[in-house]
Structures are given as structure tokens and as C-alpha cells.
């Protein structure tokens, strides 16, 4: 037992290795795909995606755009935490996208239409998504409706509900809502001085540290607390949870509330930094929730890992804008990032392959050791 374990047998190391492997494989396949579409600009396209803000010539622009990438990472961290939290409890929160939309909708509405201060907007956003998540949880707990089914349906209900809600907040010059920095300055999340670090990038602010803090909190809850113990037990075996007196229905509902709240906090956060505005005619559920699934798995289903995986996915998504539109159609950049994100889902697969390899290797080692010993003590036996 006190034998030192090989580095590869340590779970954390393994997760990092597999995640990096997935990224490399994704880039490779993405490269092959653009190579097939048009070999001319393939190398430029893929390096553009990977480089993101490094592609800019001046250091000022690089730092500024690094800040923007970080600003877009924060909501993805929240969505991946949402997916991860539910997943650890045995539920698949595909409704993160809808909860994200609800958070965004509630935040923008209370900002523009009600002119509420930012912290109230954020809280309302969190609450609405939490309730939506809990609704899925209630359906699961009392009617045994699969959360994937209710989640997908709630996604659409949420999307169109938010579109209707935000009609009055629409800027008539376009399809998007008004810029909050212009119309509701008090509702925008404070920069807490972080903008100064990123060449006065006004989108860099509270959202980023807040998302990281949330990741740490989720990690602590799941790993260190009685609540986490109960929730994971309920997720792994609801019957055993009931047998030992846990309130499994309450646990399911609470989990979904927290998961929903996390995703909608991401939505509220993002739109309250005013990086983007809500498209009131949107007919597709925001991809953020779905990317959250990829980020959660790429992060090895570890809350801290999610911070890095979310950053990576945002990095290549923003980097997609570097793809030369003279060579490729506008969708190609989305396509490349999608391929890479797709391969991020292979983390668990790679993990099992590596574990199998390590096992075989140690078995061989043990055998060799035993043979050596047998030779030494051959006369004794």
C-alpha cells in the first residue's frame, strides 16, 4: 500500500493528460477538415484559431483582446459548473442553455426596463434560472420525468419567453437590445479596477473573479461537505439514499435549483457586462449551455478544471474570428471550433484507454519482479 504510485495512476495527472490529448486530436482533425475544404489557407486558419489575440501585432491590442476573451470565459465557466454539478448528482442538465437564456432575459429586463442596480439584476437573473432548474427537478422527483426531456422543452420555452419579455428593450435600429452601458449604466457589473489591467477594456470586471470563486465554492461543496456527500449519494443510488434517510426528492430538486442558478448566473453576468446584446428575434437556443457540457467534460468533471477548459473553448471560439473570410465561408470558423469542442468530449474515452495501458504495464512489471525473485530463491522453494 505504501508503494509509490506511478504518475499516470494519479487521477488528476491523468485528467490533465487526457484533456490535452483531446485538444490536440481536435486541432488535428479540424486542420484536416479545413485542408479538405481549401488547402490554401488551412494552416493560416488553424493557427488563427489557436492564436486568437496573439495574432494581433501590437501588445496593447493583444492585452485588450485577452481581456475580452476572459470576459466571454466567465459565463462559460458558470454553464460548465451547472452541467458538472448536476452530473455529479446523476442528472444531465441539458437545460443549461435555457437557464442561461432566462438569466440573461431577467437581468436585461430588470436593468433596462426596471433600471435596477446591478446586484439586484444579477440576483433576479440567478433566481429565475434556479426556479426553472427546480421545475425540471420537481418533474423528475414527483413524476419521474427525465430531466433531459424537460430540459430540452424548457430550453425552447425559455428562449421564446425571453424574446417576448425583451421586446420593449429592443433597440429599433437593429434586432438587439439596447446597450446597457448607454441606457442603464448602474446595472452594468462594476469593473473593480480590472479594466485598467487590460488596457481599459471596459468589459473586464467583476464577472471573471466571481466565476472563479463560484468554481471554488462548487468544488468545496461537492468534495468537502455533508451536502455534497448527500447529493452525490442520491445521484449514484437514490434507493440507498432513501434507505439511510436522506430526502432524495428534496436533494434532486435542490440540485437542479443550484444547477439552474449557476447557468442563469452565467447568462446574467455576461449580458450585465454588456459584451453582447440579446437578439430578440433569436430562434436558436444560445450555444453557451451546450458548450458548457463540453467544457465540463474537458475539465475532467472537476470544478477547477472547468475554469481552464472554459477558457480554452472560449479562446478558440474567439480565435475563430481570425479565419480568413476571403478563403473560407463565414461558417468555417464555427465549424473548426465545433470540431475541436466535439473532440473535447472524448476525455472519458481516452482516460479508460490510458488506465488500461497502465494496468497492463504494472502487471508485466509485477510478473518480472516475481520471476526475478523466483530465480533468487529458487533453491529455497
Amino acid at each position, binding site marked *: 500500500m505504501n508503494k509509490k504510485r506511478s504518475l499516470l495512476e494519479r487521477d488528476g495527472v491523468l485528467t490533465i493528460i487526457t484533456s490535452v490529448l483531446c485538444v490536440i486530436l481536435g486541432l488535428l482533425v479540424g486542420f484536416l477538415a479545413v485542408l479538405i475544404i481549401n488547402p490554401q489557407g488551412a494552416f493560416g486558419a488553424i493557427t488563427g484559431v489557436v492564436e486568437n489575440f496573439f495574432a494581433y501585432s501590437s501588445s496593447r491590442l493583444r492585452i485588450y483582446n485577452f481581456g475580452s476573451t476572459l470576459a466571454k470565459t466567465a459565463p462559460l465557466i458558470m454553464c460548465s459548473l451547472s452541467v458538472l454539478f448536476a452530473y455529479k448528482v446523476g442528472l444531465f442538465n441539458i437545460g443549461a442553455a435555457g437557464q442561461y437564456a432566462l438569466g440573461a432575459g431577467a437581468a436585461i429586463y430588470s436593468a433596462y426596463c426596471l433600471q435596477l442596480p446591478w446586484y439586484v439584476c444579477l440576483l433576479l437573473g440567478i433566481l429565475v434560472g434556479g426556479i426553472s432548474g427546480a421545475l425540471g427537478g420537481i418533474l423528475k422527483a414527483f413524476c419521474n420525468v427525465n430531466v433531459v426531456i424537460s430540459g430540452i422543452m424548457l430550453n425552447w420555452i425559455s428562449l421564446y419567453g425571453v424574446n417576448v419579455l425583451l421586446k420593449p428593450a429592443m433597440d429599433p435600429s437593429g434586432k438587439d437590445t439596447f446597450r446597457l452601458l448607454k441606457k442603464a449604466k448602474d446595472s452594468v457589473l462594476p469593473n473593480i479596477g480590472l479594466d485598467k489591467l487590460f488596457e481599459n477594456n471596459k468589459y473586464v470586471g467583476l464577472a471573471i473573479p466571481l466565476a472563479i470563486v463560484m468554481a471554488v465554492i462548487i468544488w468545496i461543496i461537492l468534495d468537502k461537505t455533508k451536502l455534497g456527500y448527500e447529493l452525490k*449519494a442520491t445521484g449514484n443510488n437514490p434507493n440507498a439514499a432513501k434507505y439511510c*434517510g436522506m430526502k432524495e426528492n428534496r436533494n434532486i430538486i435542490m440540485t437542479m435549483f443550484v444547477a439552474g442558478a449557476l447557468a442563469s448566473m452565467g447568462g446574467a453576468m455576461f449580458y450585465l457586462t454588456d459584451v453582447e446584446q440579446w437578439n430578440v428575434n433569436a430562434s436558436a437556443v444560445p450555444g453557451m449551455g451546450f458548450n458548457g457540457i463540453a467544457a465540463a467534460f474537458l475539465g475532467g468533471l472537476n470544478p477547477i478544471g472547468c475554469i481552464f477548459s472554459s477558457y480554452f473553448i472560449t479562446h478558440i471560439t474567439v480565435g475563430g474570428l481570425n479565419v480568413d473570410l476571403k478563403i473560407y465561408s463565414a461558417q468555417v470558423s464555427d465549424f473548426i471550433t465545433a470540431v475541436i469542442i466535439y473532440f473535447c468530449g472524448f476525455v472519458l474515452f481516452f482516460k479508460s484507454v490510458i488506465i488500461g495501458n497502465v494496468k497492463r504495464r504494472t502487471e508485466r512489471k509485477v510478473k518480472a519482479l516475481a520471476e526475478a525473485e523466483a530465480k533468487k530463491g529458487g533453491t529455497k522453494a
Partner: protein
Amino acid sequence: MEKPYAIEMLNITKRFPGIIANDNITLQLRKGEIHALLGENGAGKSTLMSVLFGLYQPEEGVIKKDGQVVKINDPNDANRLGIGMVHQHFKLVECFSVLDNIILGVEPNKAGFLQKDEARKKVVSLSEKYGLQVDPDAIIEDISVGMQQRTEILKMLYRENEILIFDEPTAVLTPQEIEELMQIMKGLAKEGKSILFISHKLNEIMEVADRCSVLRKGKYIGTVDIANTTKEELSRMMVGRDVEFVVPKDPANPKDVVLDVQGMTVASKLHHNNAVKNVSFKVRRGEIVCIAGIDGNGQTELVYGISGLEPLKGGKIELLGHDITKAPIRKRLLQGMGHIPEDRHKHGLVLDYSLENNMVLQRYFEPEFTTKAGFLRKDNIRKYAEGLIEKFDVRSGQGPITPARAMSGGNQQKAIVAREIDRRPELLIAVQPTRGLDVGAIEFIHKQIVNHRDSGHAVLLVSLELEEVMSLSDRILVMYEGEIVGELDPKKTTVEELGLYMAGAKRTEVKA
């Protein structure tokens, strides 16, 4: 003349990091014999079988089929050599029919279209030939465990396997089904099939086997002819010491009432009637009351009702004078109920949790294991789990951090028994507490239960094993079709009389 060997495993050695699972083991199975493989939990039986199926490659030793050395790299090789196995936990597709399960993997087809008629004919003729009664069109989840097992046997026969391995086949069966299985096995051997019967139930080995090989802690102890041996001899070979089959215990000294059940009625989940009908009884301090009966006569629901897993339809339950009829489960547990559940995988364990986390499943919220702020005290959990592991001899690969899923069934059961008994509950409900355990472990758990009684607690035991019922209980209540049909004194009754009550042929009025 001795029959030739069908399969031989000669001098097999298989090592794992830290342990030698099989140390120079030899197992020779003759054609047409029933050969028992006996050993405690963790003696290396499963590893040996995994070697035979090519799941592990042995470091030393050879396998011979009909005298020829063969190399078995994976289960497909084993299958080609005619080796088949009925696993302890069946490998059946629950929502498929019996016939579909039998042909699964070797479906007769023409251009991809199933030819089920042909398969059905073959299955029907096989089931008639060997007396394996099944309904080919029944869905697995609707049929009894016995019929599921017959389906597994037919699966092997359909594949024309010559060497049939039964891995603890009786662990899940009722006494009647066990009797049937014994007959089936004898019939198969008579038809020339070679049977390897893995078990630690000595009575069954004595009844059905021709020879028996014994393993202990990874080592080969020997092979004996059943005709020239005794139960005591076999158990000594298996455990390495003499085993007491009957738990020594003083007469019961019942004191005040701990559990008082009045007119309890519980609805059935499977059928539109009541599984438990107006049942009343009391359990006192210092006595072991046993609910006996054939599986499926309402014992499961009775326990669900008392433990709170199912709501009552009628009646009243009192624990130590408190009405707990509608109390939530946690409250019942805190008021002094302990529960060793019937199904360890369904209720007893969180399989993906480590052993230590499972050890505190009933106590994780206590101040010893959780701070006021709601953080787990992991050091205390580790210490507590290590204590229980030591005290109850729970064996596992990595100690407290072993995932429960990776432990053997017997050790999983020991972990649950350890957890429940260590809480010193006023009322211990033990449902088949020794299911799937070897004699050594059974002896140990029986002693623990008797100790628990002697220290002034009440025990409600539910068991399907007549031997356990007769040797452990102070009072027997027989359940038949959801009712208590008789109260018997184990000292004054016989197994035959008990059997009559269990079969519903006899009943007397019972007053609580």
C-alpha cells in the same frame, strides 16, 4: 474405470500487485462429473475462473482440454472450447424474452433476418430433454429468479457447451428452487456434461457433487471424494479450523417491548392487492424473532413498511413506545432502528462510493463526522472505517478507499453488517444477513447477532434459509401470502413442521 479429464488447470499461478490470487492451483474436471470448487470469499475462486475464461493470463501453469494444451486468450476462445458459465448475477437483458436472451449473440439468421422458429424448436427440445421448464416468450423481468437461472442454463446448452460452470447458483434461489436445480445438475451430468459447481454451501456440495476441490487464501488445499468425506472435514479444509455450525447461545430472556406492530397492511407493488395483510406482532429486548417463509410471501414488504421505505395502508407501528407509523426514515433510524437490507446493491451501498464513505452512510451527519458548518471530517471517517474493517475483517483491495463496486459480494455484505451492528440499534432488522457468505463469515455474523441480543437489544430476522431460522431464532413467525400463519418455538418444532406452515398447509391463530 476413471473417466478422462474434460478440462485440466495445472499449477496455475496468478499474481496481482501485492497479492498472489492463485498460488499453484490445480483443478481437474472429469467428463460427466459434478465437481465442486469450495473456498471462502476471496480464496481465489473467481480469479481461477477468470483465468479459465481468458480474462486473465496466468503467470505459470497450463490449461488442458481433453488432454491437449490450449491457450485461452479471451472469453470467445473459452466459448469455442465449449466452456459456459452461469454467473451469480445473471447476464440477461431484462426487457427481452427468454428466447431472445438465449439466442443473443448467436442469432440464427438469413441475410440478417432472424430465424426464430428454428431457435425456438431447439430451445423447446433442449428444455424438455433436461427438464428445464421455461416459457420462451416470457419477458425476463416478469419471471422468477429460478426461471431466469434456467434461461442462463439453456443459454449454455444452446451453445452446445460441454463444460458448465455454476458460480454460486443457489445464492439467489428459494429452497424449492434449489432442490430443482440440484436435480437439473444431476440430469446434466448424466447426459455427459461436465459441471463445475462453485459454492460455499456445504450441504449442497454434499448432496450433489462427486468430488470437491478446496482453495484457501489463494492456495490449493486438496481434492476429495464426496463419498469419503464429511461436512466438518470440508469446512475444516476451507476455513483452516473447526467451525461451529450451530451458534452457541443461552435461552432468550425477553424483556420490554421494543417493536410493536398492530394490524399492519402494506400494498403490493407488483399486484393490485396487499402484500402484507393485517399483521400484528411484538419484538422484545433480548430476543431474536425470525420471520420465516418462502420468498415472496410479503417479507420484503413487511420490512419496507417497518423501515419506512413504503408507506402503510393501514395499521400502526410503535418503536419503544413512540408511534412511528408515519415517521420519516431518518427519524426511525435515529430512534434506534438498524436495518440490514435484503438487497445490498439496491439499498445497502452506494456502489460508486468508497468503502469508508459507505461505512458512514447512516452516521455521516453526526458531529463526529460533520462539523457544525457542514464540512465532513474526513480524518474521522477514515479512522472509523479502518476500525470497522479491522473489527469485522472486511477484505478489499485498497482498504478504506476501495470503491464498494470493486469488492466481492461477501465483503460488501460484511461491510453493511458492520455498519449496522456497530450503531448498536435498539431494534436490528436483519434481512438475510448472511446471504452469499461462506461458513466462516456466517458463523461470525451469527455470533454478532446473538451478542447484540445478549446486550439487551431486539432483533427481527428475516431469513429464507431454514438452517439459519432454526439455529438463530428464539421465536419463529411464519409468513404465508402476507399473513402470519403460525408462531413456533424453534426448540419444540421441526423443519418438517415449519415447512408445512411455510407452504400454507397448516396454520394456527397468532395473537400479538
